[in-house]
């Protein structure tokens, strides 16, 4: 790695958002130049109140809500821009909008080329 590479930090932004806001988040991520992402269906619990499910007329408590987890890794684009983009795309103002985390990434490898470091991102 060169000195220049060491200044270019790799960051992972992990966000849990409402499934129906995924389209807006993808759009706003593309607008800040970070269109690559990985999406997983997840269930989780946070500030959103539990809801009632129903099966043959009988109610039961559902306290794990369906969310999507978005993972995106950036090197040259400021992590803050990505965070802002996700926040903007996922916002409704109601409890259950989700959370965003920023994590330092030690290294990256592109499987196809074997390239390492920020250029692999």
């Amino acid at each position, binding site marked *: 790695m060169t000195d220049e590479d060491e200044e270019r930090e790799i960051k992972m932004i992990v966000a849990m958002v409402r499934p129906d806001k995924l389209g807006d988040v993808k759009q706003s991520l593309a607008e800040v130049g970070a269109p690559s992402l990985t999406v997983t269906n997840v269930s989780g619990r946070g500030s959103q109140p539990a809801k009632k*499910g*129903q*099966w*043959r*007329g*009988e*109610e*039961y408590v559902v306290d794990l809500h369906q969310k999507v987890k978005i993972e995106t890794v950036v090197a040259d684009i400021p992590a803050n821009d990505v965070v802002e983009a996700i926040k903007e795309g996922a916002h409704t103002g109601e409890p259950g909008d989700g959370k965003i985390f920023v994590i330092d990434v030690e290294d990256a490898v592109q499987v196809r080329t074997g390239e390492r470091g920020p250029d692999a991102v």
Partner: protein
Amino acid sequence: MTYELLQAVDVGAVASSVNFTWILVVTFLIFFMHAGFAMLEAGQVRSKNVANQLTKNLLTWSVGVVVFFLIGAGVSSLVGGGSFSWVPNSSPGSWASSWLYGAVFAMTAATIVSGAVAGRAKLRAYVAYTFLLAAVIYPVVTGLTWAGGHISFGGAVFQDFAGGMIVHGMGGIAGLTAAKVLGPRMGRYNEDGSANVIPGHSMTFAVLGTLILAFGWYGFNVGTAAIFNTDASGAITSFNGAVVGRVALTTTLAMAMGAIGAGSVAWARTGKVDTLYVANGLLAGLVGITAIPNASTWWGALAVGLLAGAQLPFVFEFVEKTLKIDDVCAVFPVHGSAGVLGTLAFPFVAESSRYSALVGDASMVSSFIAQLAGVVIIGAWTIAATALVWYGFKMVGQARVTPEHEQEGLDVSEHGVETYPEFGGGESVVADGGSPANFSEVNNDD
């Protein structure tokens, strides 16, 4: 066509062929109800037990129909008052119009039970029970009724046109009894006796199965009416359109009112129109009319359908909360109590000319007592025989899978398959603390 050719056509043979073809068409429709039962039950169980439920449905038909061929049909004729008439010795034409036609009804009764015992019954116990149901339990019921006409009171013979009690009532009561003996699924009840909801895995499959069943039901009910009436010698006496038309109308109206009845009661009680209750109610409406579609007035079909649907949420709750029986697919409220209700309704909703055609001069009271006697006799026999069989399995430890297998799901523990496999392929690698996959060990539940 020349006059000579027209003269050469035997009208009786043509009419018999029409009846024969009609019976085969409806037989195939009724057979298709197995697709409905498979989807309905698969949708109402958890994803870990789907393949088990599907296998039970496949084997109900496969084992049951062979047993009904070799033993069951003969037992029915024996109980009916004749001798044990072995099917291979009867005329080949009757193999279609009599044996196969009877077999699809018998297998409908058999497959209802699998929905009640879902998620915990051992496959071998279920298949053994199916054997006994097809060989003895169901044939005794048809022998007493359709074959023999042994149940009557004051000149009124017990009326059950297409099997509202004989097939569905019997199946629903058998399911409830087997589920009672087996005990509830793990986690269904808390220690204080309160019930937990265990949702099924696919509303879509449950509704698809419901509508496939309803389609097949047209064969079940309308197909029980012949196109041409014949006399004792087999000669054609008249076109049977009036009865066929009545059955088609009453079946349709009761089906619709069943869905409306169950949906309305669910709505009134919880403020929501529960999808599964609407679907179950549609079937309960069909079950309700199945004993009487050839006799009921149009308004009788509306009333019986509505009541059959409306009783569903109450009876299900009674079974669940009071009897504490884990009837997974609600087979008792759908097939059992709805079948009893429709059977008992006969004297009250029968159109007067149909009433006298079916029970002659017998009074309404006599007819009601005959209907009640049929319900009690069929119910008592079904409960006694089913309880005996399942308690027998329980005593030798063969009724239920082990708690570990139940937890893991019957798909893997009984069949070694996953209905919805997520990852797979390649050599299996042992992770830290893991052990190699060993299917022979998994399958060995002794």
